[in-house]
């Protein structure tokens, strides 16, 4: 009898199922645990209090990223509480034998940038981190999701997690993206269609020709924002794009081709059944700009701020009205008429080398608008060095952008990189929540190219009409 066709999710799930004790949630094995300074100190304290150790320190990797300065790293950290948090991570990693990519390490960076970059992230793995954007790693065909600090402690102590089997959701994207349309526009478009909770309880698998045509880094941008549609994880089946990306990276298996042979068995079997399927077409996607205070409140660059009264549900209408008040916008305002004060290019969504190349291509030969303060924060030390070698950093600095050290920076504004109240920012990050980038700050999510064009023009412009120099 032929085996029942299985999805990518089912294959990884079944391979990692340790046991499903009667009347309890199943226990799932965790292959890689990524740790950062903000959501781990209480977990390590719990281990110490209970006299427990880390079961597999060699499967655990740490880096400070959320709460680190992006200015000169040789200077001391001014904020004493931030310094304590970073020092605590150092002590914990030392005491418990965890590999730390510290602030002075050439490979330090945003945890979701360095995982794939170092080859720590591999197809078929289960990967967790105390951060909701862990879904990023699903781009390589892993099952990767964010967890809370209590679960961080659980994984440290047991190398497993209690998990109920999630439902599978195929988001199929047919067709292809038009010139100038990026993975960021695609995922914002999808979130707008799925809503902020359309993926709750599901793991999304992105499929279809439009997804297959994306580069590895573009796939990371798509999977990264799965959580903004409510899905704890997003994934894309591994293929030659994945294998070519990983080949030669630091932490990949020594017998790489043997590993590839195994990874080729991971994609969903033909005839595999998903719990839910939605089909979209990439041709429909135009450059996207969020107008509100959640990522589903998004519209095309050729559109206008909607009238909340005309939105679909009572929740949408209530959220929409509140968002317009917070954002200082009125319905009917054309997106291209919105003026910006700040531009942020960075975050685990859009701080990789391809993102910086796309932004630099727009910037080359122009100057940042005198009304705009703009910054680029590369996702990792490696990305930064590569951008410097390729001359991208000079393009940015000569145009008037600030060029910073790697970290999460103004995506969440835990460090000194924040918006002032009322400031309006075009941001390549993932959340436009109230106060996300600073209390009273107003965030519009866009692609790196759109953010770069907004920095030059001082307002949103349709990147499809950009005159590249």
């Amino acid at each position: 009898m032929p085996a029942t066709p299985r999805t990518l999710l089912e294959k990884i799930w079944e391979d990692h199922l340790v046991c499903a004790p009667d009347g309890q949630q199943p226990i799932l094995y965790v292959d890689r645990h990524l740790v950062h300074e903000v959501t781990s100190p209480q977990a390590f304290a719990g281990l110490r209090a209970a006299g427990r150790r880390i079961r597999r320190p060699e499967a655990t990797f740490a880096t400070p990223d959320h709460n680190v300065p992006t200015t000169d790293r040789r200077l001391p950290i001014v904020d004493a509480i931030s310094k304590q948090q970073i020092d605590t991570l150092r002590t914990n990693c030392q005491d418990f034998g965890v590999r730390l990519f510290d602030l002075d390490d050439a490979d330090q960076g945003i945890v979701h940038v360095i995982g794939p970059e170092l080859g720590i992230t591999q197809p078929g793995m289960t990967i967790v981190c105390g951060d909701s954007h862990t879904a990023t790693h699903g781009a390589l065909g892993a099952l990767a999701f964010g967890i809370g600090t209590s679960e961080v402690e659980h994984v440290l102590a047991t190398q497993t997690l209690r998990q109920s089997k999630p439902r599978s959701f195929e988001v199929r994207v047919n067709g292809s993206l038009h010139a100038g349309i990026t993975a960021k526009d695609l995922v914002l478009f999808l979130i707008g269609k799925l809503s902020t909770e359309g993926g709750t309880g599901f793991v999304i698998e992105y499929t279809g020709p439009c997804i297959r045509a994306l580069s590895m880094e573009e796939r990371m941008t798509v999977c990264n924002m799965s959580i903004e549609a409510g899905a704890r994880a997003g994934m894309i089946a591994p293929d030659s794009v994945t294998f070519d990306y990983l080949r030669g990276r630091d932490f990949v298996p020594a017998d790489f081709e043997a590993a590839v042979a195994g990874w080729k068995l991971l994609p969903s079997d033909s005839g595999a059944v998903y719990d839910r399927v939605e089909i979209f077409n990439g041709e429909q996607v135009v450059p996207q700009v969020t107008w509100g205070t959640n990522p589903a409140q998004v519209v095309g660059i050729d559109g206008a701020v909607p009238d909340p009264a005309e939105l679909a549900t009572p929740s949408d209408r209530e959220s929409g009205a509140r968002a317009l008040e917070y954002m200082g916008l009125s319905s009917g305002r054309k997106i291209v008429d919105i003026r910006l004060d700040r531009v942020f290019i960075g975050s685990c969504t859009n701080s990789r080398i391809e993102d910086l190349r796309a932004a630099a291509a727009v910037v080359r030969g122009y100057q940042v608008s005198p009304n705009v303060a703009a910054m680029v924060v590369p996702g990792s030390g490696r990305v930064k060095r590569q951008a410097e070698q390729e001359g991208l950093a000079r393009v940015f600095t000569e145009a008037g952008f600030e060029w910073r050290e790697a970290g999460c920076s103004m995506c969440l504004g835990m460090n000194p990189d924040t918006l002032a109240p009322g400031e309006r920012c075009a941001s390549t990050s993932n959340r436009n929540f109230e106060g996300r980038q600073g209390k009273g700050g107003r965030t519009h999510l866009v692609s790196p190219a759109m953010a770069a064009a907004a920095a030059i023009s001082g307002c949103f412009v349709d990147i499809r009409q950009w005159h590249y120099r």
Partner: protein
Amino acid sequence: MQPFTTHTGCVVPLDRANVDTDQIIPKQFLKRIERTGFGEFLFFDWRCLADGSSNPDFELNKPEYKGASILLARRNFGCGSSREHAPWALADYGFRVVIAPTFADIFFSNCFQNGMLPIQLDEQHVDELFQRAARPPYRLHIDLHACRLSDDAGFAQPFAIDAFRRTCLLAGTDSIGLSLEHIDQIAAWETAHGLTAPLLDSTLGNSQR
């Protein structure tokens, strides 16, 4: 973990959808390395005006809702960041129960790790509770043994909850201790997958063993 069996308390209505964890506990308070003391920063940016004074229009600041221990909210409560600081802040402030039509996955899981009960109730009954809670003080009784919530004026509804999570809440189970009971199966999985089982002696810190 503090067990949860039954609870009676006053309800504060927060009539907003998509309340994200950035609102529940803003990032400037995530620098602390402790698990306690987050209550005073709960909903900080909504509770405080720009000059730092208390916002009289925010529900939690209204005297009639003082001392409430049950939070009533709209769809997709707790979306966004995985920060467990959100349920820590709610619990530290005094909340034991959050009622909403839907919750975000990570926040929902995090509640159970902290002796806090998130109750998912259909939208129609949440609407009814909002109407009733508009006349404070409005008290609800929650009985986790019976999976039932009720008030003193005729409202009574059963609620659904995962059986294992319910058992753990009722007992205040140490989830790590429970999983370590399966350590032999974990080790067997590792062996079957070519991973050498680590030393099982439990001492403080790997470098100190």
